[in-house]
Protein backbone atom coordinates (compact mmCIF):
# COMPACT_ATOMS: atom_id res chain seq x y z
CA UNK A 1 0.00 0.00 0.00
CA UNK A 2 1.64 3.22 -1.09
CA UNK A 3 -1.17 5.29 -2.54
CA UNK A 4 -4.86 5.68 -1.84
CA UNK A 5 -7.50 4.57 -4.33
CA UNK A 6 -9.98 7.09 -5.79
CA UNK A 7 -12.60 6.49 -3.13
CA UNK A 8 -10.11 6.77 -0.27
CA UNK A 9 -8.81 10.02 -1.76
CA UNK A 10 -12.35 11.37 -2.05
CA UNK A 11 -12.99 10.47 1.60
CA UNK A 12 -9.75 12.12 2.65
CA UNK A 13 -10.47 15.30 0.69
CA UNK A 14 -14.02 15.56 2.03
CA UNK A 15 -12.94 15.08 5.65
CA UNK A 16 -10.01 17.48 5.21
CA UNK A 17 -12.29 20.18 3.86
CA UNK A 18 -14.78 19.65 6.67
CA UNK A 19 -12.09 19.52 9.35
CA UNK A 20 -10.45 22.72 8.13
CA UNK A 21 -13.74 24.60 7.87
CA UNK A 22 -15.56 23.37 10.96
CA UNK A 23 -13.11 21.80 13.41
CA UNK A 24 -9.88 23.79 13.07
CA UNK A 25 -11.54 27.07 14.15
CA UNK A 26 -12.78 25.34 17.33
CA UNK A 27 -9.50 23.63 18.25
CA UNK A 28 -7.90 26.30 20.48
CA UNK A 29 -11.17 26.88 22.30
CA UNK A 30 -11.74 23.16 22.92
CA UNK A 31 -8.18 22.87 24.27
CA UNK A 32 -8.55 25.88 26.55
CA UNK A 33 -11.95 24.88 27.97
CA UNK A 34 -11.16 21.19 28.34
CA UNK A 35 -14.80 20.46 27.58
CA UNK A 36 -15.93 17.54 25.48
CA UNK A 37 -17.09 18.96 22.11
CA UNK A 38 -20.59 17.54 21.70
CA UNK A 39 -21.08 19.83 18.68
CA UNK A 40 -18.25 18.05 16.88
CA UNK A 41 -19.83 14.65 17.65
CA UNK A 42 -22.95 15.94 15.96
CA UNK A 43 -20.93 17.20 12.99
CA UNK A 44 -19.14 13.85 12.60
CA UNK A 45 -22.46 11.99 12.86
CA UNK A 46 -24.11 14.26 10.28
CA UNK A 47 -21.37 13.50 7.77
CA UNK A 48 -21.46 9.73 8.45
CA UNK A 49 -17.90 9.81 9.76
CA UNK A 50 -18.85 7.82 12.85
CA UNK A 51 -20.62 5.26 10.62
CA UNK A 52 -17.47 4.41 8.66
CA UNK A 53 -16.16 1.39 10.64
CA UNK A 54 -19.55 -0.28 11.18
CA UNK A 55 -21.02 -3.02 8.94
CA UNK A 56 -23.49 -1.95 6.26
CA UNK A 57 -26.17 -4.34 7.58
CA UNK A 58 -26.33 -2.33 10.82
CA UNK A 59 -26.45 1.08 9.19
CA UNK A 60 -22.71 1.59 8.91
CA UNK A 61 -20.60 2.18 5.84
CA UNK A 62 -18.37 -0.90 6.05
CA UNK A 63 -15.28 1.20 5.38
CA UNK A 64 -11.93 -0.55 4.97
CA UNK A 65 -9.25 0.00 7.57
CA UNK A 66 -7.16 2.42 5.51
CA UNK A 67 -10.22 4.64 4.97
CA UNK A 68 -10.86 4.69 8.71
CA UNK A 69 -7.22 5.59 9.40
CA UNK A 70 -7.26 8.34 6.79
CA UNK A 71 -10.33 9.89 8.39
CA UNK A 72 -8.83 9.80 11.90
CA UNK A 73 -5.62 11.32 10.50
CA UNK A 74 -7.40 14.18 8.76
CA UNK A 75 -9.36 15.19 11.85
CA UNK A 76 -6.31 14.84 14.10
CA UNK A 77 -4.35 17.03 11.70
CA UNK A 78 -6.38 20.00 12.94
CA UNK A 79 -7.44 18.72 16.38
CA UNK A 80 -6.19 15.55 18.05
CA UNK A 81 -8.97 15.61 20.67
CA UNK A 82 -11.61 15.53 17.93
CA UNK A 83 -9.66 12.93 15.97
CA UNK A 84 -10.05 10.69 18.97
CA UNK A 85 -13.87 10.78 18.77
CA UNK A 86 -14.21 8.36 15.81
CA UNK A 87 -11.24 6.36 17.13
CA UNK A 88 -12.85 5.81 20.54
CA UNK A 89 -16.25 5.13 18.98
CA UNK A 90 -14.62 2.23 17.14
CA UNK A 91 -12.42 1.20 20.09
CA UNK A 92 -15.43 0.81 22.37
CA UNK A 93 -17.38 -1.11 19.72
CA UNK A 94 -14.81 -3.63 18.54
CA UNK A 95 -15.55 -6.29 21.18
CA UNK A 96 -19.26 -6.01 20.29
CA UNK A 97 -18.54 -6.28 16.56
CA UNK A 98 -16.21 -9.20 17.14
CA UNK A 99 -18.19 -11.30 19.61
CA UNK A 100 -21.65 -9.73 19.99
CA UNK A 101 -24.73 -11.78 19.25
CA UNK A 102 -27.10 -10.75 16.47
CA UNK A 103 -29.44 -9.33 19.12
CA UNK A 104 -26.69 -7.33 20.77
CA UNK A 105 -25.49 -5.90 17.47
CA UNK A 106 -29.03 -4.96 16.46
CA UNK A 107 -29.52 -3.33 19.84
CA UNK A 108 -26.49 -1.02 19.77
CA UNK A 109 -24.65 -0.89 16.43
CA UNK A 110 -27.21 1.16 14.43
CA UNK A 111 -27.19 3.87 17.13
CA UNK A 112 -23.39 3.77 17.35
CA UNK A 113 -23.12 4.11 13.57
CA UNK A 114 -25.48 7.08 13.56
CA UNK A 115 -23.66 8.70 16.47
CA UNK A 116 -26.84 8.65 18.57
CA UNK A 117 -24.86 6.92 21.32
CA UNK A 118 -21.15 6.99 22.17
CA UNK A 119 -19.05 4.09 23.40
CA UNK A 120 -15.91 3.69 25.49
CA UNK A 121 -13.45 0.94 26.35
CA UNK A 122 -12.63 0.26 29.99
CA UNK A 123 -9.74 -2.09 30.71
CA UNK A 124 -7.17 0.06 32.58
CA UNK A 125 -7.27 0.45 36.35
CA UNK A 126 -5.26 2.55 38.77
CA UNK A 127 -3.11 -0.46 39.66
CA UNK A 128 -3.35 -2.19 36.28
CA UNK A 129 -1.87 -0.11 33.48
CA UNK A 130 0.69 -1.86 31.31
CA UNK A 131 -0.03 -4.99 33.38
CA UNK A 132 -3.68 -4.87 32.37
CA UNK A 133 -4.20 -8.54 33.15
CA UNK A 134 -3.87 -7.71 36.85
CA UNK A 135 -7.17 -5.79 36.83
CA UNK A 136 -9.25 -6.17 39.97
CA UNK A 137 -12.73 -5.04 38.96
CA UNK A 138 -14.92 -8.09 39.47
CA UNK A 139 -18.17 -9.42 38.09
CA UNK A 140 -19.98 -12.00 40.19
CA UNK A 141 -22.97 -14.10 39.16
CA UNK A 142 -26.21 -12.92 40.71
CA UNK A 143 -29.18 -14.97 39.64
CA UNK A 144 -29.59 -14.36 35.89
CA UNK A 145 -27.27 -11.37 35.91
CA UNK A 146 -24.00 -10.04 37.23
CA UNK A 147 -22.86 -7.68 39.99
CA UNK A 148 -19.84 -5.49 39.15
CA UNK A 149 -17.51 -3.94 41.74
CA UNK A 150 -14.32 -1.95 41.29
CA UNK A 151 -12.88 1.09 39.55
CA UNK A 152 -11.54 1.79 36.08
CA UNK A 153 -9.23 4.71 35.36
CA UNK A 154 -8.01 6.72 32.37
CA UNK A 155 -11.08 5.81 30.30
CA UNK A 156 -11.33 8.02 27.22
CA UNK A 157 -14.86 9.43 26.92
CA UNK A 158 -15.92 7.18 29.81
CA UNK A 159 -18.06 9.95 31.29
CA UNK A 160 -19.88 10.85 28.06
CA UNK A 161 -20.28 7.31 26.68
CA UNK A 162 -23.73 5.73 26.66
CA UNK A 163 -22.27 2.24 26.65
CA UNK A 164 -18.90 1.16 28.03
CA UNK A 165 -17.12 -2.11 27.25
CA UNK A 166 -15.98 -3.08 30.76
CA UNK A 167 -13.49 -5.87 31.28
CA UNK A 168 -14.04 -7.50 34.68
CA UNK A 169 -12.57 -10.52 36.45
CA UNK A 170 -15.02 -13.42 36.56
CA UNK A 171 -12.58 -16.13 37.67
CA UNK A 172 -9.61 -15.19 39.85
CA UNK A 173 -8.29 -18.77 40.22
CA UNK A 174 -4.56 -19.10 39.52
CA UNK A 175 -5.27 -21.38 36.58
CA UNK A 176 -7.70 -18.96 34.92
CA UNK A 177 -5.29 -16.07 35.40
CA UNK A 178 -2.46 -18.12 33.91
CA UNK A 179 -4.57 -19.06 30.87
CA UNK A 180 -5.82 -15.45 30.51
CA UNK A 181 -9.37 -16.79 30.85
CA UNK A 182 -10.06 -14.74 33.99
CA UNK A 183 -11.87 -11.77 32.41
CA UNK A 184 -15.22 -11.24 30.76
CA UNK A 185 -16.51 -8.29 28.72
CA UNK A 186 -19.73 -6.50 29.71
CA UNK A 187 -21.39 -3.58 27.93
CA UNK A 188 -22.49 -1.38 30.82
CA UNK A 189 -25.07 1.26 30.01
CA UNK A 190 -25.06 4.79 31.33
CA UNK A 191 -27.68 5.11 34.07
CA UNK A 192 -27.08 1.60 35.41
CA UNK A 193 -27.59 1.76 39.20
CA UNK A 194 -24.23 1.58 40.98
CA UNK A 195 -22.29 2.73 37.90
CA UNK A 196 -20.92 6.28 37.95
CA UNK A 197 -18.14 8.48 36.70
CA UNK A 198 -16.92 10.31 39.82
CA UNK A 199 -14.23 12.45 38.17
CA UNK A 200 -12.29 13.31 35.04
CA UNK A 201 -8.53 13.87 34.79
CA UNK A 202 -6.84 17.25 34.29
CA UNK A 203 -4.48 16.58 31.45
CA UNK A 204 -1.51 18.03 29.62
CA UNK A 205 -2.92 17.33 26.16
CA UNK A 206 -5.97 16.03 24.25
CA UNK A 207 -7.82 18.25 26.68
CA UNK A 208 -11.04 18.15 24.66
CA UNK A 209 -11.23 14.39 25.06
CA UNK A 210 -12.43 13.65 28.55
CA UNK A 211 -10.56 10.94 30.45
CA UNK A 212 -12.73 9.53 33.19
CA UNK A 213 -12.62 7.42 36.27
CA UNK A 214 -15.46 4.89 36.38
CA UNK A 215 -16.81 3.40 39.60
CA UNK A 216 -18.85 0.21 39.99
CA UNK A 217 -20.52 -0.26 43.36
CA UNK A 218 -22.70 -3.34 43.26
CA UNK A 219 -23.66 -2.35 39.71
CA UNK A 220 -26.21 -4.83 38.46
CA UNK A 221 -25.70 -5.81 34.82
CA UNK A 222 -27.94 -8.17 32.86
CA UNK A 223 -26.43 -11.26 31.27
CA UNK A 224 -27.81 -9.91 27.98
CA UNK A 225 -25.06 -7.24 28.25
CA UNK A 226 -22.26 -9.80 28.43
CA UNK A 227 -20.42 -9.81 25.11
CA UNK A 228 -18.54 -12.98 24.23
CA UNK A 229 -18.30 -16.08 26.38
CA UNK A 230 -17.40 -15.95 30.05
CA UNK A 231 -13.60 -15.94 30.13
CA UNK A 232 -13.23 -14.36 26.64
CA UNK A 233 -12.57 -10.86 27.99
CA UNK A 234 -8.79 -10.77 27.71
CA UNK A 235 -8.85 -12.26 24.23
CA UNK A 236 -11.42 -9.64 23.15
CA UNK A 237 -9.36 -6.80 24.62
CA UNK A 238 -6.27 -8.00 22.74
CA UNK A 239 -8.30 -8.45 19.53
CA UNK A 240 -9.53 -4.88 20.01
CA UNK A 241 -5.96 -3.56 20.20
CA UNK A 242 -5.11 -5.07 16.83
CA UNK A 243 -7.48 -2.58 15.26
CA UNK A 244 -7.44 0.28 17.72
CA UNK A 245 -3.67 0.76 17.97
CA UNK A 246 -3.42 1.69 14.28
CA UNK A 247 -6.18 4.24 15.02
CA UNK A 248 -3.86 5.88 17.54
CA UNK A 249 -1.09 5.62 14.95
CA UNK A 250 -3.37 7.56 12.59
CA UNK A 251 -4.01 10.17 15.26
CA UNK A 252 -0.24 10.52 15.70
CA UNK A 253 0.38 10.82 11.95
CA UNK A 254 -2.33 13.48 11.78
CA UNK A 255 -0.73 15.48 14.60
CA UNK A 256 2.69 15.20 12.91
CA UNK A 257 1.27 16.28 9.54
CA UNK A 258 -0.57 19.22 11.07
CA UNK A 259 2.58 20.41 12.83
CA UNK A 260 4.69 19.93 9.68
CA UNK A 261 2.23 21.93 7.58
CA UNK A 262 2.32 24.84 10.03
CA UNK A 263 6.11 24.77 10.35
CA UNK A 264 6.60 24.74 6.58
CA UNK A 265 4.22 27.64 6.08
CA UNK A 266 5.84 29.64 8.87
CA UNK A 267 9.37 28.93 7.63
CA UNK A 268 8.38 30.15 4.18
CA UNK A 269 7.05 33.45 5.49
CA UNK A 270 9.14 34.38 8.52
CA UNK A 271 12.22 36.34 7.48
CA UNK A 272 15.45 36.64 9.45
CA UNK A 273 18.85 37.72 8.16
CA UNK A 274 17.11 38.91 4.99
CA UNK A 275 15.52 35.67 3.85
CA UNK A 276 12.79 33.21 4.83
CA UNK A 277 14.05 31.06 7.70
CA UNK A 278 13.26 27.91 5.68
CA UNK A 279 16.01 28.98 3.26
CA UNK A 280 18.53 28.71 6.08
CA UNK A 281 19.90 25.21 5.82
CA UNK A 282 19.50 24.30 9.46
CA UNK A 283 15.76 25.02 9.36
CA UNK A 284 15.36 23.52 5.89
CA UNK A 285 16.90 20.26 7.10
CA UNK A 286 14.49 20.14 10.05
CA UNK A 287 11.51 20.55 7.71
CA UNK A 288 12.85 17.83 5.42
CA UNK A 289 13.21 15.42 8.33
CA UNK A 290 9.75 16.25 9.69
CA UNK A 291 8.07 15.59 6.34
CA UNK A 292 10.08 12.41 5.72
CA UNK A 293 9.40 10.90 9.13
CA UNK A 294 5.70 11.71 8.90
CA UNK A 295 5.39 10.08 5.49
CA UNK A 296 7.31 7.01 6.69
CA UNK A 297 4.96 6.69 9.67
CA UNK A 298 1.95 6.94 7.36
CA UNK A 299 3.28 4.29 4.98
CA UNK A 300 3.99 1.87 7.84
CA UNK A 301 0.49 2.51 9.15
CA UNK A 302 -1.17 1.69 5.83
CA UNK A 303 1.02 -1.37 5.34
CA UNK A 304 0.13 -2.55 8.84
CA UNK A 305 -3.56 -2.01 8.08
CA UNK A 306 -3.29 -4.26 5.04
CA UNK A 307 -1.70 -7.04 7.06
CA UNK A 308 -4.18 -6.72 9.92
CA UNK A 309 -7.17 -6.71 7.60
CA UNK A 310 -5.92 -9.96 6.03
CA UNK A 311 -5.81 -11.57 9.50
CA UNK A 312 -2.05 -11.86 9.31
CA UNK A 313 -0.79 -14.12 12.14
CA UNK A 314 1.50 -11.25 13.15
CA UNK A 315 -1.35 -8.70 13.28
CA UNK A 316 -0.47 -7.74 16.86
CA UNK A 317 3.11 -7.01 15.91
CA UNK A 318 2.00 -4.87 12.96
CA UNK A 319 -0.40 -2.95 15.20
CA UNK A 320 2.34 -2.31 17.74
CA UNK A 321 4.92 -1.36 15.12
CA UNK A 322 2.77 1.27 13.44
CA UNK A 323 1.60 2.79 16.73
CA UNK A 324 5.15 2.83 18.12
CA UNK A 325 6.66 4.50 15.09
CA UNK A 326 3.82 6.99 14.60
CA UNK A 327 3.76 8.00 18.27
CA UNK A 328 7.50 8.63 18.40
CA UNK A 329 7.25 10.50 15.09
CA UNK A 330 4.47 12.76 16.38
CA UNK A 331 6.49 13.61 19.49
CA UNK A 332 9.69 14.35 17.56
CA UNK A 333 7.99 16.28 14.76
CA UNK A 334 5.86 18.47 17.02
CA UNK A 335 8.91 19.24 19.20
CA UNK A 336 10.75 20.35 16.06
CA UNK A 337 7.73 22.35 14.89
CA UNK A 338 7.83 24.36 18.10
CA UNK A 339 11.58 24.84 17.51
CA UNK A 340 11.01 26.10 13.96
CA UNK A 341 8.47 28.63 15.20
CA UNK A 342 10.81 29.69 18.01
CA UNK A 343 9.30 31.87 20.70
CA UNK A 344 6.05 32.12 18.75
CA UNK A 345 5.76 28.34 18.74
CA UNK A 346 5.89 28.31 22.52
CA UNK A 347 2.85 30.58 22.75
CA UNK A 348 -0.81 29.80 22.21
CA UNK A 349 -0.77 32.21 19.27
CA UNK A 350 0.13 29.18 17.10
CA UNK A 351 -1.27 25.65 17.48
CA UNK A 352 2.07 23.82 17.52
CA UNK A 353 2.47 23.98 21.31
CA UNK A 354 -0.94 22.30 21.64
CA UNK A 355 0.09 19.70 19.08
CA UNK A 356 3.27 18.99 21.06
CA UNK A 357 1.20 18.46 24.23
CA UNK A 358 -1.31 16.32 22.32
CA UNK A 359 1.44 14.22 20.71
CA UNK A 360 2.70 12.97 24.07
CA UNK A 361 -0.41 10.89 24.74
CA UNK A 362 0.20 8.81 21.60
CA UNK A 363 3.33 7.44 23.30
CA UNK A 364 1.35 6.50 26.38
CA UNK A 365 -2.12 5.15 25.73
CA UNK A 366 -3.31 1.95 24.12
CA UNK A 367 -0.08 0.48 25.46
CA UNK A 368 3.01 2.56 26.18
CA UNK A 369 5.81 2.58 23.64
CA UNK A 370 7.68 0.23 25.97
CA UNK A 371 4.81 -2.29 25.85
CA UNK A 372 4.73 -2.02 22.03
CA UNK A 373 8.44 -2.86 21.89
CA UNK A 374 7.86 -5.78 24.24
CA UNK A 375 5.10 -7.15 21.97
CA UNK A 376 7.21 -6.70 18.85
CA UNK A 377 10.26 -8.35 20.40
CA UNK A 378 8.22 -11.28 21.76
CA UNK A 379 6.65 -11.86 18.37
CA UNK A 380 10.03 -11.74 16.64
CA UNK A 381 11.55 -14.23 19.06
CA UNK A 382 8.51 -16.50 18.97
CA UNK A 383 9.20 -17.29 15.35
CA UNK A 384 12.64 -18.71 16.13
Amino acid at each position, binding site marked *: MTVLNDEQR*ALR*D*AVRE*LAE*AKIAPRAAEIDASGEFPHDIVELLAQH*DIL*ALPFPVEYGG*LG*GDMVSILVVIEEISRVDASCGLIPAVQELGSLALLHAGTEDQKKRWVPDLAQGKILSAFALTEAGAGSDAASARTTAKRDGDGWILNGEKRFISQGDVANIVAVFAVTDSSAEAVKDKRHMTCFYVEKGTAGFSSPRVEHKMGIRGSTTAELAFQNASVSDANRVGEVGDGWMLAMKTFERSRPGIGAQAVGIAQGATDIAVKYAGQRKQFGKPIGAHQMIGAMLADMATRTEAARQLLWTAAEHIEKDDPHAQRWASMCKLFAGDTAMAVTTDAVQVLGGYGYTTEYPVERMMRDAKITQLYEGTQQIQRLIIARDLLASL
Partner: protein
Amino acid sequence: MNIVVLLKAVPVVGTERLDSNFMTDRTVQLEANGNDEYLLEKALKLTEAHGGEVVTLTVGPAGAMEPIRKALAMGTARAVQVTDDALRGSDMRATLDVLAAALKKMEPWDLVFAGADTSDGQGGVLGAALAVRLNLPYLSYASEIEPTDSGGVRIHRFNSTGYDILEAPTPAVVMGTQLLGAPRYPSLRGIMQARAKQVETCTLADLGLAPETVGADAATTKTLDSAKPPERAGATFVREAPDEAVAKVVEFLSSRRLI
Protein backbone atom coordinates in the same frame (compact mmCIF):
# COMPACT_ATOMS: atom_id res chain seq x y z
CA MET B 1 -38.67 17.49 -11.56
CA ASN B 2 -35.56 16.43 -13.50
CA ILE B 3 -32.74 18.93 -13.52
CA VAL B 4 -29.57 19.04 -15.58
CA VAL B 5 -26.84 21.09 -13.89
CA LEU B 6 -24.06 22.38 -16.12
CA LEU B 7 -20.91 21.66 -14.15
CA LYS B 8 -17.58 22.96 -15.38
CA ALA B 9 -14.30 21.58 -14.08
CA VAL B 10 -11.95 24.52 -13.58
CA PRO B 11 -8.39 24.68 -12.25
CA VAL B 12 -8.35 24.96 -8.46
CA VAL B 13 -8.81 28.69 -7.86
CA GLY B 14 -5.46 30.32 -7.23
CA THR B 15 -3.49 27.70 -9.21
CA GLU B 16 -4.59 28.73 -12.72
CA ARG B 17 -1.91 29.06 -15.37
CA LEU B 18 -1.85 29.53 -19.14
CA ASP B 19 0.00 27.37 -21.62
CA SER B 20 2.11 28.80 -24.45
CA ASN B 21 -1.01 29.36 -26.59
CA PHE B 22 -2.68 31.42 -23.83
CA MET B 23 -5.07 28.59 -23.14
CA THR B 24 -5.96 27.57 -19.60
CA ASP B 25 -3.80 24.62 -18.61
CA ARG B 26 -6.24 21.85 -17.70
CA THR B 27 -3.65 19.27 -16.76
CA VAL B 28 -3.55 20.75 -13.23
CA GLN B 29 -5.95 19.64 -10.52
CA LEU B 30 -9.51 20.57 -11.38
CA GLU B 31 -12.42 21.42 -9.10
CA ALA B 32 -16.08 22.26 -9.66
CA ASN B 33 -16.64 25.85 -10.73
CA GLY B 34 -17.78 27.70 -7.61
CA ASN B 35 -20.76 29.39 -9.26
CA ASP B 36 -22.00 26.05 -10.61
CA GLU B 37 -21.98 24.54 -7.13
CA TYR B 38 -24.66 26.95 -5.87
CA LEU B 39 -26.98 25.68 -8.60
CA LEU B 40 -26.01 22.10 -7.89
CA GLU B 41 -26.93 22.55 -4.23
CA LYS B 42 -30.26 24.14 -5.13
CA ALA B 43 -31.02 21.37 -7.63
CA LEU B 44 -30.36 18.73 -4.95
CA LYS B 45 -32.59 20.55 -2.46
CA LEU B 46 -35.40 20.87 -5.03
CA THR B 47 -35.36 17.19 -5.98
CA GLU B 48 -35.14 16.17 -2.32
CA ALA B 49 -38.26 18.21 -1.62
CA HIS B 50 -40.23 17.57 -4.81
CA GLY B 51 -38.85 14.36 -6.31
CA GLY B 52 -36.99 13.82 -9.56
CA GLU B 53 -33.28 13.57 -10.14
CA VAL B 54 -30.26 15.74 -10.74
CA VAL B 55 -27.82 14.91 -13.52
CA THR B 56 -24.66 16.92 -14.17
CA LEU B 57 -23.40 17.69 -17.67
CA THR B 58 -19.71 18.45 -18.06
CA VAL B 59 -17.60 19.18 -21.11
CA GLY B 60 -14.01 18.63 -20.10
CA PRO B 61 -10.89 16.48 -19.97
CA ALA B 62 -10.18 13.38 -17.86
CA GLY B 63 -9.32 15.51 -14.84
CA ALA B 64 -12.97 16.61 -14.70
CA MET B 65 -13.84 13.23 -13.20
CA GLU B 66 -12.87 14.37 -9.71
CA PRO B 67 -15.42 17.21 -9.46
CA ILE B 68 -17.98 14.99 -11.22
CA ARG B 69 -17.45 12.30 -8.57
CA LYS B 70 -17.76 14.91 -5.85
CA ALA B 71 -21.13 15.96 -7.27
CA LEU B 72 -22.22 12.30 -7.29
CA ALA B 73 -21.14 12.09 -3.64
CA MET B 74 -23.19 15.19 -2.89
CA GLY B 75 -26.27 13.46 -4.30
CA THR B 76 -26.57 13.68 -8.09
CA ALA B 77 -28.12 10.58 -9.66
CA ARG B 78 -25.64 10.25 -12.51
CA ALA B 79 -23.39 12.31 -14.75
CA VAL B 80 -22.72 12.88 -18.41
CA GLN B 81 -19.23 13.91 -19.48
CA VAL B 82 -18.39 14.99 -23.01
CA THR B 83 -14.71 14.48 -23.58
CA ASP B 84 -12.79 14.51 -26.82
CA ASP B 85 -9.24 15.60 -27.67
CA ALA B 86 -10.62 17.69 -30.54
CA LEU B 87 -12.42 19.94 -28.04
CA ARG B 88 -9.21 21.52 -26.78
CA GLY B 89 -9.26 25.27 -27.29
CA SER B 90 -12.98 25.40 -28.19
CA ASP B 91 -14.56 28.84 -28.06
CA MET B 92 -17.93 29.62 -26.56
CA ARG B 93 -19.79 28.94 -29.83
CA ALA B 94 -18.38 25.43 -30.09
CA THR B 95 -19.03 24.74 -26.40
CA LEU B 96 -22.60 25.83 -26.98
CA ASP B 97 -22.97 23.37 -29.90
CA VAL B 98 -21.68 20.56 -27.73
CA LEU B 99 -23.89 21.38 -24.75
CA ALA B 100 -26.98 21.77 -26.95
CA ALA B 101 -26.32 18.40 -28.63
CA ALA B 102 -25.71 16.69 -25.29
CA LEU B 103 -28.87 18.18 -23.78
CA LYS B 104 -30.90 16.94 -26.77
CA LYS B 105 -29.51 13.47 -26.15
CA MET B 106 -30.31 13.69 -22.43
CA GLU B 107 -34.00 14.57 -22.91
CA PRO B 108 -36.43 14.54 -21.23
CA TRP B 109 -35.57 17.05 -18.49
CA ASP B 110 -37.50 19.94 -16.97
CA LEU B 111 -34.79 22.43 -16.13
CA VAL B 112 -31.23 23.26 -17.05
CA PHE B 113 -29.28 25.10 -14.34
CA ALA B 114 -26.28 27.26 -15.25
CA GLY B 115 -23.89 29.21 -13.00
CA ALA B 116 -23.46 32.95 -13.50
CA ASP B 117 -19.99 32.49 -14.99
CA THR B 118 -16.85 30.42 -14.57
CA SER B 119 -13.68 31.23 -12.65
CA ASP B 120 -11.49 30.49 -15.69
CA GLY B 121 -13.52 31.49 -18.78
CA GLN B 122 -15.63 34.26 -17.26
CA GLY B 123 -17.77 34.51 -20.38
CA GLY B 124 -21.02 34.63 -18.44
CA VAL B 125 -23.28 34.21 -21.48
CA LEU B 126 -23.53 30.46 -21.81
CA GLY B 127 -26.83 30.00 -19.99
CA ALA B 128 -28.51 32.76 -22.00
CA ALA B 129 -27.04 31.56 -25.29
CA LEU B 130 -28.17 28.01 -24.57
CA ALA B 131 -31.74 29.17 -23.91
CA VAL B 132 -31.74 31.00 -27.24
CA ARG B 133 -30.27 28.01 -29.05
CA LEU B 134 -32.81 25.61 -27.54
CA ASN B 135 -35.61 28.15 -27.88
CA LEU B 136 -36.45 27.96 -24.18
CA PRO B 137 -37.42 30.53 -21.54
CA TYR B 138 -34.44 32.00 -19.68
CA LEU B 139 -34.61 33.05 -16.03
CA SER B 140 -31.45 34.79 -14.92
CA TYR B 141 -29.79 35.77 -11.63
CA ALA B 142 -32.10 33.62 -9.54
CA SER B 143 -31.73 34.00 -5.79
CA GLU B 144 -34.54 31.49 -5.20
CA ILE B 145 -36.00 28.78 -7.43
CA GLU B 146 -39.23 26.86 -6.85
CA PRO B 147 -41.65 24.77 -8.84
CA THR B 148 -45.15 26.10 -9.52
CA ASP B 149 -48.33 24.06 -9.07
CA SER B 150 -48.89 24.06 -12.82
CA GLY B 151 -45.54 22.39 -13.50
CA GLY B 152 -43.63 25.56 -14.28
CA VAL B 153 -40.75 27.27 -12.50
CA ARG B 154 -40.68 30.47 -10.47
CA ILE B 155 -37.61 32.45 -9.44
CA HIS B 156 -36.69 35.48 -7.37
CA ARG B 157 -34.32 37.97 -8.94
CA PHE B 158 -32.81 40.70 -6.82
CA ASN B 159 -33.10 44.27 -8.04
CA SER B 160 -32.38 47.68 -6.58
CA THR B 161 -35.70 47.85 -4.72
CA GLY B 162 -36.15 44.26 -3.58
CA TYR B 163 -36.75 41.33 -5.85
CA ASP B 164 -38.83 40.44 -8.89
CA ILE B 165 -40.75 37.19 -9.12
CA LEU B 166 -40.58 35.62 -12.55
CA GLU B 167 -42.32 32.54 -13.82
CA ALA B 168 -41.93 30.38 -16.90
CA PRO B 169 -43.20 27.06 -18.17
CA THR B 170 -40.78 24.15 -18.31
CA PRO B 171 -38.52 23.15 -19.90
CA ALA B 172 -36.51 26.24 -19.13
CA VAL B 173 -32.96 27.42 -18.47
CA VAL B 174 -32.23 29.02 -15.09
CA MET B 175 -29.09 30.95 -14.23
CA GLY B 176 -28.59 31.45 -10.48
CA THR B 177 -26.40 33.26 -8.01
CA GLN B 178 -24.66 32.49 -4.75
CA LEU B 179 -27.76 33.69 -2.89
CA LEU B 180 -29.16 30.21 -3.57
CA GLY B 181 -27.01 28.98 -0.70
CA ALA B 182 -23.67 27.35 0.04
CA PRO B 183 -23.04 23.88 -1.35
CA ARG B 184 -23.09 20.97 1.10
CA TYR B 185 -20.08 18.88 2.02
CA PRO B 186 -20.38 15.40 0.60
CA SER B 187 -21.08 12.88 3.37
CA LEU B 188 -18.96 9.76 3.62
CA ARG B 189 -22.06 7.71 2.82
CA GLY B 190 -22.51 9.78 -0.33
CA ILE B 191 -18.88 9.23 -1.36
CA MET B 192 -19.16 5.49 -0.89
CA GLN B 193 -22.47 5.30 -2.75
CA ALA B 194 -21.01 7.36 -5.60
CA ARG B 195 -18.90 4.43 -6.77
CA ALA B 196 -22.06 2.60 -7.87
CA LYS B 197 -23.34 5.58 -9.86
CA GLN B 198 -22.95 5.88 -13.58
CA VAL B 199 -20.84 8.43 -15.44
CA GLU B 200 -21.75 8.33 -19.12
CA THR B 201 -18.87 9.47 -21.30
CA CYS B 202 -19.65 10.79 -24.79
CA THR B 203 -17.37 11.77 -27.63
CA LEU B 204 -18.14 14.24 -30.41
CA ALA B 205 -19.05 11.31 -32.67
CA ASP B 206 -21.60 10.12 -30.11
CA LEU B 207 -23.22 13.55 -30.31
CA GLY B 208 -23.09 13.65 -34.12
CA LEU B 209 -20.68 16.58 -34.18
CA ALA B 210 -17.79 16.92 -36.62
CA PRO B 211 -14.38 17.43 -34.96
CA GLU B 212 -13.48 20.24 -37.40
CA THR B 213 -16.34 22.38 -36.08
CA VAL B 214 -14.81 22.60 -32.59
CA GLY B 215 -11.40 23.15 -31.01
CA ALA B 216 -8.79 25.87 -31.34
CA ASP B 217 -8.69 25.86 -35.16
CA ALA B 218 -12.43 26.40 -35.45
CA ALA B 219 -12.51 29.14 -32.82
CA THR B 220 -14.02 32.37 -34.08
CA THR B 221 -11.92 34.41 -31.66
CA LYS B 222 -8.25 34.12 -30.94
CA THR B 223 -6.19 35.26 -27.95
CA LEU B 224 -3.24 37.26 -29.29
CA ASP B 225 -1.51 38.10 -26.07
CA SER B 226 -1.93 37.86 -22.34
CA ALA B 227 -0.36 39.94 -19.62
CA LYS B 228 -0.27 39.62 -15.87
CA PRO B 229 -1.65 42.48 -13.82
CA PRO B 230 1.10 44.71 -12.44
CA GLU B 231 2.53 43.53 -9.11
CA ARG B 232 0.84 45.23 -6.20
CA ALA B 233 2.81 46.94 -3.50
CA GLY B 234 3.20 45.01 -0.26
CA ALA B 235 0.11 44.86 1.94
CA THR B 236 -0.01 46.55 5.33
CA PHE B 237 -1.36 44.30 8.07
CA VAL B 238 -3.28 45.84 10.94
CA ARG B 239 -3.25 43.41 13.84
CA GLU B 240 -4.16 45.67 16.74
CA ALA B 241 -7.32 45.39 18.84
CA PRO B 242 -10.47 46.85 17.16
CA ASP B 243 -10.32 50.42 18.59
CA GLU B 244 -6.66 50.84 17.86
CA ALA B 245 -7.05 49.13 14.48
CA VAL B 246 -9.79 51.55 13.42
CA ALA B 247 -7.52 54.51 14.28
CA LYS B 248 -4.69 52.97 12.24
CA VAL B 249 -6.89 52.30 9.22
CA VAL B 250 -8.28 55.85 9.33
CA GLU B 251 -4.78 57.27 9.57
CA PHE B 252 -3.62 55.09 6.67
CA LEU B 253 -6.48 56.19 4.44
CA SER B 254 -6.43 59.88 5.39
CA SER B 255 -2.66 60.15 4.92
CA ARG B 256 -3.27 59.08 1.31
CA ARG B 257 -6.19 61.50 0.98
CA LEU B 258 -8.54 58.58 0.36
CA ILE B 259 -11.03 59.79 2.96
